[in-house]
């Protein structure tokens, strides 16, 4: 805008939204359900927490409709830690998003872990001051969400399973497709955009730069320090851990070990040291035996 007065504060610009995502690279974002868990996460070195009422493993086990958390619980968590606090809204539920923005959460996760509110449309994220993170299974889905205004992408994985196989599948899918775009000639990019179902301009940008226009994190199934380091070595820029910490035997040391593993993801000797004596990880569910209808990652488009 030509009449912008830069001597005044320009709040919630695209650069400040993606900028916060940049600040969250190389760290771990942990799901927490209480202020006590948030403190354990922060003391372990979590760079942010995701406030939610039930971790994905419990949502899976208990069934029913999963919704945005109670604002009172989110505010208690906001008061208990100094690191950024994220919270989830249902896919397409823009009023839950408005409420989370009014609470001053630092990032909204429009998440497939909650029961979708709209099967046709996701939230128009450009209209919000608060930045959004969205899940994806492939490059087309990532670029559709970025087109809608997501300032951070996370590959979905399969939340609440403790099985990293889907997280690996989705991240490899995104990086393989990015590599393929880089090998195309300019005249092939419109066809690629059509096949991906993605905005043409973003396809052109990814083909030119070889990476997503916003940071790309990994989620869904990380249960051990080795899982976290695996996702980092595969190209994730940070890791979300949901059920993996507070559904394990001894959350505090495991939380710390996963933080240390992400900080040292290329150092096998340190990873060996970090992985020792952590007790049992969450028992988990193998994704290979799951019916398609039980998968959370197929929600959204």
């Amino acid at each position: 805008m030509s009449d912008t007065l830069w001597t005044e504060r320009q709040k919630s610009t695209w650069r400040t939204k993606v900028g916060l995502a940049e600040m969250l690279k190389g760290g771990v974002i942990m799901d927490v359900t209480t202020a006590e868990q948030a403190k354990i996460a922060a003391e372990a070195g979590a760079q942010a927490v995701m406030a939610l009422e039930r971790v994905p493993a419990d949502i899976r086990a208990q069934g029913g409709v999963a919704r945005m958390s109670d604002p009172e619980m989110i505010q208690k968590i906001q008061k208990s830690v100094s690191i950024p606090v994220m919270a989830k809204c249902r896919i397409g539920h823009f009023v839950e998003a408005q409420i989370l923005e009014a609470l001053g959460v630092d990032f909204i996760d429009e998440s497939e872990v909650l029961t979708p509110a709209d099967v046709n449309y996701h939230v128009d994220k450009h209209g919000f001051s608060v930045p959004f993170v969205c899940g994806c299974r492939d490059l087309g889905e990532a670029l559709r969400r970025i087109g809608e205004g997501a300032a951070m992408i996370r590959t979905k994985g399969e939340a609440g399973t403790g099985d990293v196989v889907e997280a690996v599948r989705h991240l490899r899918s995104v990086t393989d497709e990015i590599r393929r775009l880089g090998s195309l000639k300019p005249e092939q990019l419109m066809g690629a955009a059509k096949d991906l179902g993605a905005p043409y301009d973003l396809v052109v940008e990814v083909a030119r730069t070889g990476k997503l226009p916003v940071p790309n994190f990994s989620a869904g199934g990380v249960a051990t320090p080795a899982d976290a380091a695996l996702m980092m070595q595969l190209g994730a820029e940070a890791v979300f851990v949901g059920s993996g910490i507070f559904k394990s035997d001894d959350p505090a040391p495991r939380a710390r070990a996963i933080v240390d593993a992400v900080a040292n993801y290329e150092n096998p000797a340190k990873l060996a040291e970090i992985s020792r004596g952590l007790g049992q990880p969450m028992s988990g569910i193998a994704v290979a035996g799951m019916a398609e209808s039980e998968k959370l990652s197929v929600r959204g488009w």
Partner: protein
Amino acid sequence: MKTVGVISFQGDFEKHLERSCALGMRAVPVRDTETAAQVDAIIIPGGESTTIGMLLQRFGMLDLIGGRIREGLPVLATCAGTILLAEEIIGSDQPRIGGLHVAVRRNAYGRQIESFEAEVAVSNSDWAGWQDGSVLGVFIRAPIIDSVSDDVTVILEFEGKPVMVRQGALLAATFHPELTADTRVHEYFFHTVAGFPRAT
């Protein structure tokens, strides 16, 4: 050739590595004590100051870097980096490197929805490069420098508060020069504060 180390545990270290390379420096990520002991300058990036401080402590680098700073190691700190470099963090006893004689307040502008961009003013110009155009500051959950000692020079300020200060070989900003295309903060750090020769 001088080597710049960027503390690369958490935060936007990648942007600092890219910027340093683009300006002709040899830049390496710092994740262990061996590298930290060897580099000719250190950059502490933005991110979460508690997380970065904790990891520096766990991996035995707080005292090492603190000691090298007392011996004159040049340091550029941005946002969370400035918190880690501050002698006083108001209301917090979190692990820190220290050495910069300022008092900072964390998240002093508010939560993420209060993050902003704005032009910042040149306060004390000991470098002609600042006059080439205005400096755009990107402030993300930024701290405020509440007070500075006599040995600290305020270089850039916003709304009457220091947003970039220098104390000898230490340069600290509360905003993110690595997120804009303007390379002057890094150039000033490398060539004036640290005194490294320009690449020819």
